[in-house]
Protein backbone atom coordinates (compact mmCIF):
# COMPACT_ATOMS: atom_id res chain seq x y z
CA UNK A 1 0.00 0.00 0.00
CA UNK A 2 1.18 3.56 -0.69
CA UNK A 3 2.32 5.70 2.26
CA UNK A 4 0.41 8.70 3.64
CA UNK A 5 3.18 10.86 2.28
CA UNK A 6 2.58 9.53 -1.21
CA UNK A 7 -1.17 9.76 -0.72
CA UNK A 8 -0.82 13.47 0.12
CA UNK A 9 1.11 13.98 -3.14
CA UNK A 10 -1.65 12.27 -5.10
CA UNK A 11 -4.33 14.24 -3.26
CA UNK A 12 -2.63 17.40 -4.50
CA UNK A 13 -2.25 15.91 -7.98
CA UNK A 14 -5.93 15.12 -8.33
CA UNK A 15 -6.68 18.84 -7.86
CA UNK A 16 -4.83 19.59 -11.08
CA UNK A 17 -5.74 16.77 -13.42
CA UNK A 18 -7.33 13.36 -13.57
CA UNK A 19 -4.88 10.87 -12.14
CA UNK A 20 -3.85 7.85 -14.18
CA UNK A 21 -5.86 4.77 -13.28
CA UNK A 22 -3.16 3.04 -11.20
CA UNK A 23 -2.64 6.17 -9.09
CA UNK A 24 -6.34 6.67 -8.64
CA UNK A 25 -6.68 3.07 -7.56
CA UNK A 26 -3.70 3.36 -5.18
CA UNK A 27 -5.11 6.50 -3.59
CA UNK A 28 -8.62 5.08 -3.44
CA UNK A 29 -7.46 1.96 -1.66
CA UNK A 30 -5.29 3.91 0.76
CA UNK A 31 -8.10 6.34 1.55
CA UNK A 32 -10.46 3.47 2.22
CA UNK A 33 -8.24 2.33 5.06
CA UNK A 34 -6.77 5.62 6.30
CA UNK A 35 -9.03 8.08 8.14
CA UNK A 36 -6.22 10.64 8.42
CA UNK A 37 -5.76 10.85 4.67
CA UNK A 38 -9.51 10.95 4.09
CA UNK A 39 -9.64 13.94 6.37
CA UNK A 40 -6.67 15.60 4.68
CA UNK A 41 -8.29 15.01 1.30
CA UNK A 42 -11.51 16.66 2.41
CA UNK A 43 -9.76 19.60 4.06
CA UNK A 44 -7.41 20.16 1.16
CA UNK A 45 -10.33 20.16 -1.23
CA UNK A 46 -11.94 22.83 0.92
CA UNK A 47 -8.74 24.92 0.99
CA UNK A 48 -8.47 24.68 -2.77
CA UNK A 49 -12.08 25.77 -3.12
CA UNK A 50 -11.47 28.77 -0.86
CA UNK A 51 -8.40 29.85 -2.83
CA UNK A 52 -10.30 29.40 -6.06
CA UNK A 53 -13.09 31.61 -4.78
CA UNK A 54 -10.74 34.20 -3.36
CA UNK A 55 -9.00 34.60 -6.70
CA UNK A 56 -12.14 34.36 -8.78
CA UNK A 57 -14.03 36.87 -6.69
CA UNK A 58 -13.76 40.52 -6.06
CA UNK A 59 -13.09 40.38 -2.36
CA UNK A 60 -9.63 41.05 -1.04
CA UNK A 61 -7.35 39.97 1.73
CA UNK A 62 -5.73 43.42 1.79
CA UNK A 63 -8.68 45.69 2.61
CA UNK A 64 -6.47 48.63 3.57
CA UNK A 65 -4.10 48.63 0.62
CA UNK A 66 -4.39 51.58 -1.76
CA UNK A 67 -2.68 52.65 -4.93
CA UNK A 68 -0.02 55.19 -3.88
CA UNK A 69 -0.99 58.82 -4.51
CA UNK A 70 2.08 59.48 -6.66
CA UNK A 71 1.05 56.62 -8.90
CA UNK A 72 -2.50 57.92 -9.14
CA UNK A 73 -1.41 61.40 -10.12
CA UNK A 74 1.00 60.06 -12.69
CA UNK A 75 -1.63 57.80 -14.22
CA UNK A 76 -4.27 60.51 -14.33
CA UNK A 77 -1.83 62.82 -16.06
CA UNK A 78 -0.96 60.20 -18.67
CA UNK A 79 -4.62 59.31 -19.29
CA UNK A 80 -5.71 62.94 -19.59
CA UNK A 81 -2.84 63.70 -21.88
CA UNK A 82 -3.82 60.84 -24.12
CA UNK A 83 -7.48 61.90 -24.12
CA UNK A 84 -6.54 65.48 -24.99
CA UNK A 85 -4.36 64.30 -27.83
CA UNK A 86 -7.29 62.36 -29.28
CA UNK A 87 -9.94 65.04 -28.96
Amino acid at each position, binding site marked *: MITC*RRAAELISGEQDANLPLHQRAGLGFHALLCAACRRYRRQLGAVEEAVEQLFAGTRTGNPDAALPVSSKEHLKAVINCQLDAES
Partner: protein
Amino acid sequence: MDLSLTTPILDPATWVDAHGDYLYRFALDRVRDPESAEELVQQALLAALTARHAFRGRSSERTWLTAILKRKVADWLRDAVRQRARQEPPPDKSTDALFTRSGKWKKKPDEWSADDPGRELNRAEFRIVLTDCLGKLPTRLRQTFVLKHVDEESANEICRTVGVTATNMAVMLHRARLRLWRCLTVNWFGEEPVAPSEGRS
Protein backbone atom coordinates in the same frame (compact mmCIF):
# COMPACT_ATOMS: atom_id res chain seq x y z
CA MET B 1 -33.91 57.03 -26.86
CA ASP B 2 -31.48 56.41 -24.08
CA LEU B 3 -28.04 56.31 -25.68
CA SER B 4 -26.46 54.54 -22.73
CA LEU B 5 -28.38 51.40 -23.66
CA THR B 6 -26.82 51.15 -27.09
CA THR B 7 -23.48 52.85 -26.69
CA PRO B 8 -21.18 51.51 -24.02
CA ILE B 9 -19.88 54.33 -21.90
CA LEU B 10 -16.33 54.32 -20.64
CA ASP B 11 -14.96 57.31 -18.84
CA PRO B 12 -11.17 56.93 -18.66
CA ALA B 13 -10.73 60.26 -16.89
CA THR B 14 -12.42 58.75 -13.82
CA TRP B 15 -10.76 55.31 -13.88
CA VAL B 16 -7.99 56.05 -11.42
CA ASP B 17 -10.31 57.47 -8.76
CA ALA B 18 -13.13 55.02 -9.36
CA HIS B 19 -11.15 51.78 -9.71
CA GLY B 20 -7.49 52.47 -8.88
CA ASP B 21 -7.48 51.15 -5.32
CA TYR B 22 -9.62 48.17 -6.20
CA LEU B 23 -7.38 47.19 -9.10
CA TYR B 24 -4.31 47.68 -6.95
CA ARG B 25 -5.66 45.32 -4.27
CA PHE B 26 -6.58 42.81 -6.94
CA ALA B 27 -2.99 42.81 -8.22
CA LEU B 28 -1.43 42.90 -4.75
CA ASP B 29 -3.39 39.83 -3.58
CA ARG B 30 -1.89 37.88 -6.46
CA VAL B 31 1.67 39.17 -6.90
CA ARG B 32 2.31 40.24 -3.28
CA ASP B 33 4.91 42.81 -4.31
CA PRO B 34 3.62 46.41 -3.95
CA GLU B 35 5.87 47.86 -6.65
CA SER B 36 4.93 45.20 -9.14
CA ALA B 37 1.25 45.59 -8.29
CA GLU B 38 1.51 49.33 -8.93
CA GLU B 39 3.28 48.72 -12.21
CA LEU B 40 0.68 46.18 -13.32
CA VAL B 41 -2.20 48.57 -12.61
CA GLN B 42 -0.49 51.21 -14.73
CA GLN B 43 0.07 48.76 -17.56
CA ALA B 44 -3.51 47.54 -17.41
CA LEU B 45 -5.07 51.01 -17.42
CA LEU B 46 -2.90 52.18 -20.30
CA ALA B 47 -3.71 49.03 -22.25
CA ALA B 48 -7.40 49.62 -21.51
CA LEU B 49 -7.12 53.18 -22.72
CA THR B 50 -5.75 52.00 -26.05
CA ALA B 51 -8.30 49.23 -26.35
CA ARG B 52 -11.33 51.15 -25.09
CA HIS B 53 -13.00 51.32 -28.50
CA ALA B 54 -13.28 47.54 -28.38
CA PHE B 55 -15.40 47.75 -25.22
CA ARG B 56 -18.86 46.43 -26.06
CA GLY B 57 -20.51 47.07 -22.73
CA ARG B 58 -21.30 43.43 -22.07
CA SER B 59 -19.77 43.79 -18.63
CA SER B 60 -19.34 46.69 -16.27
CA GLU B 61 -16.42 49.03 -16.69
CA ARG B 62 -14.79 47.59 -13.58
CA THR B 63 -15.19 43.99 -14.71
CA TRP B 64 -13.71 44.88 -18.08
CA LEU B 65 -10.71 46.62 -16.50
CA THR B 66 -10.24 43.74 -14.08
CA ALA B 67 -10.13 41.22 -16.93
CA ILE B 68 -7.35 43.22 -18.59
CA LEU B 69 -5.45 43.44 -15.30
CA LYS B 70 -5.89 39.72 -14.71
CA ARG B 71 -4.15 38.96 -18.00
CA LYS B 72 -1.26 41.25 -17.01
CA VAL B 73 -1.02 39.52 -13.64
CA ALA B 74 -0.94 36.09 -15.28
CA ASP B 75 1.82 37.26 -17.66
CA TRP B 76 3.81 38.59 -14.72
CA LEU B 77 3.46 35.33 -12.77
CA ARG B 78 4.36 33.27 -15.83
CA ASP B 79 7.54 35.32 -16.26
CA ALA B 80 8.41 34.94 -12.58
CA VAL B 81 7.91 31.16 -12.64
CA ARG B 82 9.71 30.82 -15.97
CA GLN B 83 12.83 32.50 -14.59
CA ARG B 84 13.47 29.63 -12.23
CA ALA B 85 11.90 26.94 -14.35
CA ARG B 86 15.11 25.00 -14.85
CA GLN B 87 16.02 24.84 -11.17
CA GLU B 88 15.00 21.72 -9.31
CA PRO B 89 12.84 22.57 -6.30
CA PRO B 90 15.20 22.30 -3.30
CA PRO B 91 14.49 19.80 -0.52
CA ASP B 92 11.66 21.05 1.67
CA LYS B 93 12.07 20.52 5.40
CA SER B 94 8.61 21.82 6.07
CA THR B 95 7.06 19.00 4.03
CA ASP B 96 9.44 16.40 5.48
CA ALA B 97 8.57 17.51 9.00
CA LEU B 98 4.95 16.42 8.65
CA PHE B 99 5.77 12.78 7.93
CA THR B 100 7.77 10.06 9.65
CA ARG B 101 10.62 8.36 7.90
CA SER B 102 8.30 5.55 6.91
CA GLY B 103 5.87 8.02 5.34
CA LYS B 104 3.11 8.19 7.97
CA TRP B 105 1.61 11.41 9.32
CA LYS B 106 3.65 12.45 12.37
CA LYS B 107 0.54 14.09 13.71
CA LYS B 108 -2.72 13.10 12.11
CA PRO B 109 -4.83 15.90 10.65
CA ASP B 110 -7.25 17.26 13.28
CA GLU B 111 -10.91 17.70 12.68
CA TRP B 112 -11.55 21.31 11.76
CA SER B 113 -13.88 23.53 13.70
CA ALA B 114 -15.54 24.52 10.41
CA ASP B 115 -15.28 22.45 7.29
CA ASP B 116 -16.45 24.96 4.78
CA PRO B 117 -13.81 27.56 3.90
CA GLY B 118 -16.02 28.70 1.04
CA ARG B 119 -18.50 30.02 3.57
CA GLU B 120 -15.75 31.32 5.81
CA LEU B 121 -14.68 33.51 2.90
CA ASN B 122 -17.62 35.77 3.68
CA ARG B 123 -15.73 36.80 6.77
CA ALA B 124 -13.12 39.46 6.23
CA GLU B 125 -11.01 37.97 9.04
CA PHE B 126 -10.78 34.68 7.21
CA ARG B 127 -9.79 36.36 3.96
CA ILE B 128 -6.99 38.13 5.81
CA VAL B 129 -5.75 34.87 7.38
CA LEU B 130 -5.93 33.07 4.04
CA THR B 131 -4.07 35.90 2.33
CA ASP B 132 -1.45 35.92 5.10
CA CYS B 133 -0.98 32.18 4.78
CA LEU B 134 -0.51 32.57 1.04
CA GLY B 135 1.97 35.34 1.75
CA LYS B 136 3.98 33.09 4.04
CA LEU B 137 4.63 30.57 1.29
CA PRO B 138 8.16 30.69 -0.11
CA THR B 139 8.10 32.99 -3.14
CA ARG B 140 8.55 30.36 -5.79
CA LEU B 141 5.94 28.01 -4.35
CA ARG B 142 3.52 30.89 -4.00
CA GLN B 143 4.02 32.18 -7.53
CA THR B 144 3.54 28.71 -8.97
CA PHE B 145 0.45 28.05 -6.89
CA VAL B 146 -1.14 31.43 -7.63
CA LEU B 147 -0.36 31.10 -11.33
CA LYS B 148 -2.20 27.79 -11.30
CA HIS B 149 -5.25 29.65 -9.97
CA VAL B 150 -4.99 32.82 -12.04
CA ASP B 151 -4.14 31.22 -15.36
CA GLU B 152 -7.12 29.82 -17.17
CA GLU B 153 -5.00 27.06 -18.68
CA SER B 154 -4.64 23.51 -17.40
CA ALA B 155 -1.64 22.56 -15.27
CA ASN B 156 -0.12 20.75 -18.24
CA GLU B 157 -0.46 23.74 -20.49
CA ILE B 158 1.08 26.00 -17.82
CA CYS B 159 4.06 23.63 -17.55
CA ARG B 160 4.57 23.92 -21.27
CA THR B 161 4.36 27.71 -21.44
CA VAL B 162 6.70 28.33 -18.51
CA GLY B 163 9.07 25.45 -19.22
CA VAL B 164 8.66 23.61 -15.90
CA THR B 165 8.56 19.82 -15.98
CA ALA B 166 5.25 18.30 -14.97
CA THR B 167 7.00 16.54 -12.09
CA ASN B 168 8.51 19.73 -10.67
CA MET B 169 5.22 21.55 -11.09
CA ALA B 170 3.41 18.80 -9.19
CA VAL B 171 6.04 18.87 -6.42
CA MET B 172 5.74 22.63 -5.98
CA LEU B 173 1.94 22.65 -6.00
CA HIS B 174 1.89 19.83 -3.47
CA ARG B 175 4.29 21.64 -1.14
CA ALA B 176 2.40 24.88 -1.46
CA ARG B 177 -0.89 23.16 -0.61
CA LEU B 178 0.56 21.25 2.32
CA ARG B 179 1.96 24.45 3.81
CA LEU B 180 -1.23 26.37 3.17
CA TRP B 181 -3.32 23.62 4.73
CA ARG B 182 -1.03 23.55 7.74
CA CYS B 183 -1.09 27.33 8.13
CA LEU B 184 -4.90 27.44 7.97
CA THR B 185 -5.17 24.53 10.39
CA VAL B 186 -3.02 26.35 12.92
CA ASN B 187 -4.37 29.86 12.39
CA TRP B 188 -8.03 29.38 11.67
CA PHE B 189 -9.54 25.93 11.85
CA GLY B 190 -7.69 24.44 14.79
CA GLU B 191 -9.99 23.55 17.64
CA GLU B 192 -7.32 23.72 20.27
CA PRO B 193 -4.72 26.40 20.82
CA VAL B 194 -1.40 25.40 19.34
CA ALA B 195 1.01 23.88 21.83
CA PRO B 196 3.78 26.41 22.58
CA SER B 197 6.51 24.07 21.41
CA GLU B 198 4.80 23.66 18.06
CA GLY B 199 4.25 27.40 17.69
CA ARG B 200 7.87 28.25 18.20
CA SER B 201 9.56 25.56 16.18
